[in-house]
């Protein structure tokens, strides 16, 4: 009885402790700079303690949900599509997943609004709310489209088993060539937009989809072929956003 209880307790405790370990570096860095470098007191200590507890709990729940929900769904969808054998529907799903999860992404909305401000200040578009809204919305749809294309292309690569580095090197060349022609104001935003597209919910799902596909298709290795969808999704937005800047500018 006691042994079982204590086993239960350690099973509950272990993920909590590892979440604490994940958060510890941030707390140490902030504490060190606040107390030693800036020589200030910690404002509102109780609030910080509550916040840290929430973060640790949140991380623990997230990992639990990952293993119960997101990973199995991504994998079972991959198996179901592989069994069904319809390339069209698989690619349609890949595109929808990329487009649908990106278009509403809060980080992207923030970056798009910021970019509209830069464009208005640089005189690329008119300096009033309507033009800026139109520019930001256009940018958002451009990025969402680029992520949809990325996941579609990435899934197609997994099915064909083509080596990933040809695509990535080709993408890099695309970025470099576009950089030479794109207006200067858009470059920083374009480069950053590659990093903000993949949210915390999309990443596990898309990873599970890729690995699931690679494991269910004969002759594919999940390690070599299964990963790489995220890489595609962070590369295409750079090219598409610079193209957007060139067309609008």
């Amino acid at each position, binding site marked *: 009885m006691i042994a079982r209880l204590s086993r239960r307790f350690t099973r509950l405790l272990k993920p909590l402790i590892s979440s604490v370990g994940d958060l510890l570096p941030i707390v140490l860095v902030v504490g060190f700079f606040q107390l030693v*470098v800036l020589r200030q007191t910690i404002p509102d200590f109780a609030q910080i303690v509550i916040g840290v507890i929430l973060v640790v709990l949140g991380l623990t729940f997230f990992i639990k*949900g990952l293993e119960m929900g997101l990973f199995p769904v991504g994998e079972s969808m991959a198996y179901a599509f592989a069994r069904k054998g319809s390339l069209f529907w698989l690619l349609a799903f890949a595109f929808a997943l990329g487009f649908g999860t990106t278009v509403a992404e809060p980080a992207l909305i923030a970056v798009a609004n910021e970019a509209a401000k830069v464009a208005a200040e640089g005189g690329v578009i008119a300096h009033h709310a309507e033009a800026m809204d139109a520019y930001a919305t256009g940018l958002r749809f451009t990025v969402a489209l680029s992520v949809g294309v990325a996941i579609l292309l990435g899934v197609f690569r997994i099915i064909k088993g083509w080596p990933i580095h040809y695509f990535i090197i080709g993408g890099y060349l695309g970025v470099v060539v576009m950089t030479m022609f794109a207006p200067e104001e858009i470059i920083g935003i374009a*480069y950053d937009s590659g990093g903000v597209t993949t949210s915390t919910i999309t990443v596990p799902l898309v990873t599970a989809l890729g690995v699931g596909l690679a494991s269910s298709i004969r002759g594919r290795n999940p390690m070599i072929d299964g990963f790489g969808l995220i890489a595609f999704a962070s590369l295409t937005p750079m090219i598409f956003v610079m193209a957007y800047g060139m067309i609008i500018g």
Partner: protein
Amino acid sequence: MNDLLQLLLNSTLSTVSDVLPIAIIIFGFQFLVIRKPIPHLKNVLFGFFYVLLGLSLFLVGLEEALFPIGRLMAQQLTDPAFILGSELGRLAVWSDYGWIYLFAFTIGYATTIAEPSLLAVAIKASEVSGGSIGIRGLRNAVALGVAIGITLGTFRIISGTPLHYYIIVGYIIVIIQTFKSPKMIIALAYDSGGVTTSTVTVPLVTALGLGLASTVPGRSPMLDGFGLIAFASLFPIIAVLGYAQLSQWRASRSSSS
């Protein structure tokens, strides 16, 4: 306490709107195209609920505890009065910013270790590789890459050199490493560039970039404040490939001796 509840509500709503399109796409395709019930549906729904709850708590906690103080810190560290101290009035040069480089390095490392999407990819990679890629090892390599990337990125803002030079040189390094690295690691390494920058890293790093660009003389926040995220997505690729090359080199040396 009321504020906390309000914050929790807002965060839950924004997480729900994040999950909703994903749920619609998954269930839509499941019912219309695949036309089979989802296996272990009850478990999956609970899983989605846990993800939602977890992310909401996570974001509220960060907003409550770490982001305000981190943002304030970025501002204070970039304040000319702090950087020059008693010599205020003279023009700062790049070597005056020692604490900023240390802050950039450590905060880049620390936020990446706490990044949930990196953890997800690391769990999957460890599972697929049968444990030969460790969860801790991968996360440490990625975090080290982000730390180096952000530090170099702050140097770029301070020195005012063009962003695309750094990125293009980074690309060339990645391409050379690709041809020298074990095949197994390449796709995973490319992926690790995209997962580093989400919920934890972006807000703090953006505050640092904007703070620097608005206080360093001659920089504009609009033009120079961007670009740190790009560094944080490129350098982990180099770090992970480098880590794999190092392990391979060590293994080949110990087997030949």
